């Protein structure tokens, strides 16, 4: 509040008279104000738009361009004014800062242009008033993210290879940018095809087929054509393993590659097969093994290398992680509250389904996901589509992507 201090200073000095009679020693001399008290109007010409202001107004902030002697560099003797070859629209806001002490951020301006103007006039963005600070921060974050994306896209562009690159670098480039060479493109499509084949095989093998001679019940196709499916699975896993090992070899930084999301997905996609090979045909562990096969569905995520849209979805989820986390937390809270209420409400009644609070959890979850009627406790029947739509709706309110 530099303006305020300047205004009230004579008053503060005057009020010091009040404690003079009590002072035991002589008061020290007040600092002499060397600046002339007579005020003058300054003319500031910004690209042809003439602004006028009191000199004292500009002197309020001596550590900016306009408040210090730096502005003398821009003084034009002939026209007796300060000339700046900058944006007059932005200058309006800068000048208002001197007048009112609050810097506002104009919503329709580009954030980078605004930052440049502030840097030129020597004003730090941190003093933006509370009214505009949130908007400013959001725009700045958005801009930075977009820039980060752009640089990432630029790095992965089709610039010609440096002349003396090793075969390893060429291989890595072939993996990252499939359209640089025909081989890479072929490999790209082949892996895509095999991912699709693998996923379809997983789906088809559970479909019931005609039983072979001698049996009455319908069998899932997986059991009938066990050998065929096993061969297909082996082929897919071999291709994926080969691809993973090639990427690992070509990666410029192996540790970084192994930690990346795509690599983890690759490993999770092929591990069940190898574990299945290693594990004996034991009754006890086969249950666990069946669960492990569920992980084969992760192969579908390998498509994110092939689809930009999937990657963007991934980024969106990542950047909205905190909002999603909060959503999950509030859902859990609501579930617990309602389950407890239901349990205690029905406690006295005989034959109630709410035998315990965890039992009421199930009812609460199902009701909250608006299924209502489909209360079956034998297997999970959550309607994924509804849940996803509902989550998306909630997330949209929280997340601005």
């Amino acid at each position: 509040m530099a303006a305020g201090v300047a205004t009230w200073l004579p008053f503060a000095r005057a009020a010091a008279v009040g404690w003079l009679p009590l002072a035991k020693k002589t008061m020290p001399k007040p600092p002499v104000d060397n600046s002339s008290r007579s005020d003058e109007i300054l003319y500031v010409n910004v690209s042809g738009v003439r602004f006028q202001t009191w000199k004292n107004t500009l002197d309020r902030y001596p550590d900016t361009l306009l408040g210090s002697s730096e502005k003398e560099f821009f003084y034009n003797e002939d026209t007796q004014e300060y000339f700046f070859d900058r944006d007059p629209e932005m200058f309006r806001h800068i000048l208002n800062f001197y007048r009112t002490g609050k810097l506002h951020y104009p919503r329709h301006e580009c954030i980078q242009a605004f930052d440049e103007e502030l840097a030129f006039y020597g004003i730090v963005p941190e003093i933006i008033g509370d009214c505009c600070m949130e908007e400013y921060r959001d725009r700045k974050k958005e801009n930075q993210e977009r820039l980060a994306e752009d640089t990432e896209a630029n790095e992965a562009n089709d610039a010609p290879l440096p002349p003396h690159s090793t075969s390893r670098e060429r291989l890595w480039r072939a993996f990252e940018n499939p359209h640089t060479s025909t081989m890479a493109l072929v490999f790209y499509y082949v892996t895509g095809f095999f991912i699709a084949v693998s996923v379809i095989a997983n789906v088809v093998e559970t479909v019931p087929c005609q039983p072979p001679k001698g049996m009455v019940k319908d069998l899932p196709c997986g059991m009938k054509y066990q050998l065929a499916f096993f061969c297909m699975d082996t082929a897919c896993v071999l291709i994926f393993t080969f691809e993973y090992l090639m990427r690992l070899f070509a990666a410029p930084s192996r540790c970084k590659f192994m930690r990346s999301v795509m690599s983890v997905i690759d490993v999770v996609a092929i591990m069940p097969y190898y574990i299945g090979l290693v594990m004996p045909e034991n009754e006890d562990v086969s249950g666990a093994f069946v669960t492990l096969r569920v992980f084969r569905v992760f192969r579908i995520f390998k498509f994110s290398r092939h689809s930009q849209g999937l990657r963007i979805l991934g980024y969106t989820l990542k950047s909205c992680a905190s909002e999603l986390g909060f959503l999950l937390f509030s859902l859990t809270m609501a579930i617990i509250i309602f389950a407890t209420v239901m349990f205690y409400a029905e406690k006295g009644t005989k034959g109630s389904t709410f035998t315990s609070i965890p039992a009421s959890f199930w009812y609460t979850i199902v009701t909250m996901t608006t299924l209502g009627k489909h209360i079956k406790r034998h297997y999970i029947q959550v309607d994924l589509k509804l849940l996803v739509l509902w989550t998306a709706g909630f997330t949209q309110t929280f997340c601005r992507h």
Partner: protein
Amino acid sequence: MTMVCHRPEGLEQLEAQTNFSKQELQILYRGFKNECPSGVVNEETFKHIYAQFFPHGDASMYAHYLFNAFDTTNNGSIKFKDFVVGLSTLLRGTLREKLEWTFHLYDINRDGYINREEMTEIVRAIYDMMGKYTYPALKGDVPQQHVDAFFQKMDKNKDGVVTMEEFIIACQEDENMMRSMQLFENVM
């Protein structure tokens, strides 16, 4: 928030009532209007301003007494006229006017006498405002000693209260204070 806007009387009248020139009044008013667009200062703003000048202590009590001293009409707000008249007295007034103003500051209940309680209040308020810059370090009865010293000096007839005349005479005899007053001549 009701937009109560108070406008001061004309420039000429204010110039007549105070010892400021037109230019000075203009500068003062521009600053005043910038800080208080509604044209009046209330006690909260006053305390806030003083807190900014004395961040190391608690200036609220002294600001309260000051506010009452400036608010000659006793309506809870200071208009520009009160502000500028007070300033004029303190910065451009005669010695007697300054001392009278200070007496009114100390006389909290406006009964024409300063008694020990009022003085103790004022001294305590000043010590609070100075905060950790008081020397020696504030012990329990240092304000009391200060008040005793003050009464010793000012209360000529030893009747326990200080009247306006006693105050003015005693101050004029105090050389230190006269010198300090001189320093405030014409400081704006």
